[in-house]
């Protein structure tokens, strides 16, 4: 075991290495309540005169609602209130509006149209669950059934039914510019022409229901001080509080939310639908109200981990080095955004997987279909793309006739390597993880692979550099549908350009490592309460390597030469000197880059987008994170909590 380095240095300052907890019983602080049945889940609070909510739900994937007749339900003596869309003060919401991301696109109660089976239209508040169920059966809805779409790629086709009127292209709008999230690093198309093999595949992961033992729900009740108490099973208490304050247009100070004991969540209890409805029920009746899904609702209406489709196209050299990876991802958001827009960005930040690949491009779409809206679940945005990438790594290994673990060790990130999203890799441990896994499985590794280390061989030469990057305007909002082209990453790109290579100066470290290219993306440790004393230089001051380096070059040495023997120090193995053999530049059918994309373009501060070349939609940045008003911004405070909305 001695030959494996467990990288214990990585967390040396965060924990001692005695591992004293291992093998020792450590009691959960909440376990006594669990074994005595006294842990207070949201439903374990008793109220006299508790009312129950049940919802009238769409039986159709997609339909216009012509008329809703609640008269029979309203006439039932046990029914206290029938809540319609018009009764919700702010009916439209999107979960991430609290951090200013995305447009309000989902009604609490459907208004005029339904977009998935099970979507609630009307909420009945009744004295008993059974009375509420009976009243639901008594509501008559006149639907005009509309064509529906259930497949992500079909949804992007020009004639597809429009699922969500707020996003009429059936895709989330990224940075107010593109119908997908882009990642561009190097020149994938040029590198693919030089690869020995092109390995291509499509991977599909189905939706997965979190299926918690406790179904989602909340109980609201009036308190004596004019506040409303809400017991909830949410995993995101303040999120739910903020959403409730927004949708009911009331100050959050009137809401007393109590949670924390969750009967299993796995990510699926963050959608904040029960709390607004339960509190609204209480506001309208003055009585305690429970809104709890039954099991069928939990499975049918409860938002699952969304389905994802990934297309991976690798350029691979005969010795196993992956020189290019192009990915297209489709997240099935279902009918509304919820957290899928964020999942797309999460996955983009994860690409191209834990491998040092000099040319990477990805287009990831957040697609609307007439399915149940999807939401968070344990590593959502990462698991399916990892599934695709790791299946693909095996396929690459098979193609080049290489051991799959050795292929991973060969291509793994090493400390100091430049990642596709322009941060340098640190604390890498994939090589070591592969070595341990191989050893545990008695899987033979070559001496070279056994001797490889994340600590050496990385961050040298091209491995530490941001390459000259090919960029394009493919997929501007609305164009795909309007012009009828498919989901090919480059289809419809009427402008292409190149961004000069940028080199991150080792001296220009920010508090968290290398300076980000986008100042908005920099965490401000001082603000978070840390004293850093670090140089306050920012990305815009980082010296940039002036002349563009040669286009992507492909090392030609055999794979075995790439492994670094332990103890060789940081010297670069011959195989990792790619710039020594510049390959011919690929001529691209591109418009000349606008003047703004000069050598300093990548380091431009996030001031308003450069208008100088206004006729060209081409932006000057490889990543489009910054310019749009709707983009991710510096961590901020919800207007509801900050007091702008009372």
């Amino acid at each position, binding site marked *: 075991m001695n030959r494996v380095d467990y990288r214990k240095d990585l967390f040396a300052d965060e924990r001692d290495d005695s591992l004293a907890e291992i093998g020792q019983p450590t009691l959960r602080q909440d376990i006594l309540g669990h074994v005595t049945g006294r842990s207070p889940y949201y439903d374990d609070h008793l109220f006299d005169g508790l009312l129950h909510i*049940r919802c009238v739900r769409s039986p159709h994937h997609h339909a216009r609602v012509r008329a809703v007749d609640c008269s029979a339900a309203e006439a039932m003596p046990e029914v206290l209130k029938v809540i319609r869309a018009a009764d919700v003060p702010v009916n439209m919401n999107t979960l991430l509006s609290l951090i200013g991301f995305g447009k309000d696109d989902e009604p609490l109660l459907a208004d005029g149209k339904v977009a998935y089976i099970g979507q609630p239209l009307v909420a009945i508040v009744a004295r008993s*669950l*059974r*009375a*509420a*169920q*009976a009243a*639901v*059966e008594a509501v008559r809805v006149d639907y005009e059934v509309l064509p529906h779409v259930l497949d992500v790629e079909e949804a992007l086709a020009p004639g597809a039914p429009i699922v969500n009127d707020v996003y009429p292209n059936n895709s989330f709008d990224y940075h107010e510019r593109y119908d997908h999230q882009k990642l561009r690093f190097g020149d994938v198309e040029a590198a693919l022409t030089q690869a020995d093999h092109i390995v291509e595949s499509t991977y599909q992961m189905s939706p997965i229901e979190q299926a918690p033992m406790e179904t989602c729900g909340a109980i609201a009740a009036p308190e004596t001080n004019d506040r409303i108490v809400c017991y909830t099973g949410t995993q995101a208490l303040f999120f739910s509080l903020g959403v409730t304050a927004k949708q009911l247009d009331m100050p959050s100070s009137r809401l007393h939310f109590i949670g924390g004991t969750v009967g299993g969540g796995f990510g699926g209890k963050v959608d904040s639908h029960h709390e607004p409805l339960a509190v609204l029920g209480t506001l309208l009746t003055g009585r305690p109200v429970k809104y709890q899904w*039954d099991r*069928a609702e939990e499975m049918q209406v409860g938002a699952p981990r969304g389905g994802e489709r990934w297309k991976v196209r690798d350029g691979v050299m005969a010795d196993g080095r992956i020189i290019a990876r192009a990915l297209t991802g489709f997240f099935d958001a279902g009918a509304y955004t919820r957290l899928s827009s964020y999942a797309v960005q999460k996955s983009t930040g994860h690409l191209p997987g834990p491998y040092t690949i000099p040319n990477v491009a990805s287009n990831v779409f957040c697609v609307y279909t007439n399915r149940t809206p999807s939401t968070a679940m344990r590593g959502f945005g990462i698991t399916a793309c990892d599934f695709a990438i790791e299946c693909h790594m095996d396929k690459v290994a098979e193609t080049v006739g290489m051991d799959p673990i050795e292929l991973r060790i060969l291509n793994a990130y090493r400390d100091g390597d430049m990642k596709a999203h322009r941060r340098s890799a640190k604390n890498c441990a994939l090589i070591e993880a592969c070595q341990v896994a191989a050893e545990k499985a008695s899987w033979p590794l070559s001496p070279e692979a056994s001797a490889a280390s994340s600590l050496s061989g990385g961050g040298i030469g091209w491995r530490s550099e941001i390459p000259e990057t090919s960029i394009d305007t493919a997929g501007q909002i609305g164009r795909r549908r309007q012009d009828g082209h498919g989901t090919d990453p480059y289809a419809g790109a009427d402008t292409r350009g190149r961004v000069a290579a940028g080199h991150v100066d080792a001296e220009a470290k920010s508090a968290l490592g290398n300076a980000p290219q986008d100042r908005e993306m920099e965490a401000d440790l001082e603000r978070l309460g840390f004293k850093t004393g670090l140089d306050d230089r920012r990305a815009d001051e980082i010296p940039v390597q002036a002349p563009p380096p040669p286009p992507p070059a492909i090392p030609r040495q055999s794979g075995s030469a790439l492994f670094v023997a332990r103890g060789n120090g940081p010297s670069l193995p011959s195989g990792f000197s790619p710039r020594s053999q510049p390959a011919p530049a690929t001529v691209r059918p591109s418009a000349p880059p606008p003047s703004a994309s000069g050598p300093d373009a990548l380091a431009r501060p996030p001031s308003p987008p450069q208008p100088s070349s206004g006729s060209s939609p081409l932006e000057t940045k490889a990543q489009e994170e910054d310019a749009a008003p709707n983009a991710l911004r510096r961590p901020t405070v919800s207007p509801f909590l900050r007091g702008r909305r009372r």
Partner: protein
Amino acid sequence: MLEVVTTATLAEAAAAMGPGARFLGGGTLVMRAANEGDPTLRRIVRSTERLDRIQTEGNRIRIGAGVTMSGLLAARETAFLAPAARAVGGPQVRNQATVGGNLHAPHPYGDLTVALLALDGIVHLSNGQDMALEPYLAARAHPPGLVAAVSVTQPMGEAFRFRKVSRIKPKGVSVLSMAAHLSRSAGRLSGVRIAYGAMGPAPVRAAAVERALEGADLSATGIASALAQATVGLEPPDDALASAWYRREVAPVHLRRLLLGEP
């Protein structure tokens, strides 16, 4: 709204039945409907009469409609039904679910009924009428009376076989279930009864398989023709557990294992 009618005898309960009424056995079906607000359920009828007797009558065994799966597992006389009784639910459900209720369990439930069907089940109704299980199942949505008991042939030796295919063990819902009563005459199969569960809206007999096994011997070649007709005349359902296509594909495989006693 819902009402509950409790009677002292099954006959009185039968009189209390009517539109919107369902008879409560162990509760696993009727209480689920009540909990879910099934609008077709307006009256729950139950009887305090005990219907949990198990009696041997010649070569047949008569099982009270109120005998639970646990009751079948505990009784020596019904040991041959143990594989089917054990295939129903978990321990809690087996403590509640009754023989009479199983006759009304919708797809994909009702594994015990598959066994009863293969064993020439006869339904004894509260009005004294007897009815073969097969036609009873065909008309089970509108039964002619309440079930008082079910009687089955007592199989000889290894003649009765049961198999349940599910994705989760030990408690899982049926992809399909199969029961065979392999009676013989002069060393050859004769009067064989084969029944399937989860291969239609209710448990069904595999008539084509039964015909093909008549006079055959239990060898790979002897059952080949029966396997070829494993799903003739059947319309297996598509559901979340398996597609109709899958059920058709695997049915001959499981039938072979059942007939040849393979694991």
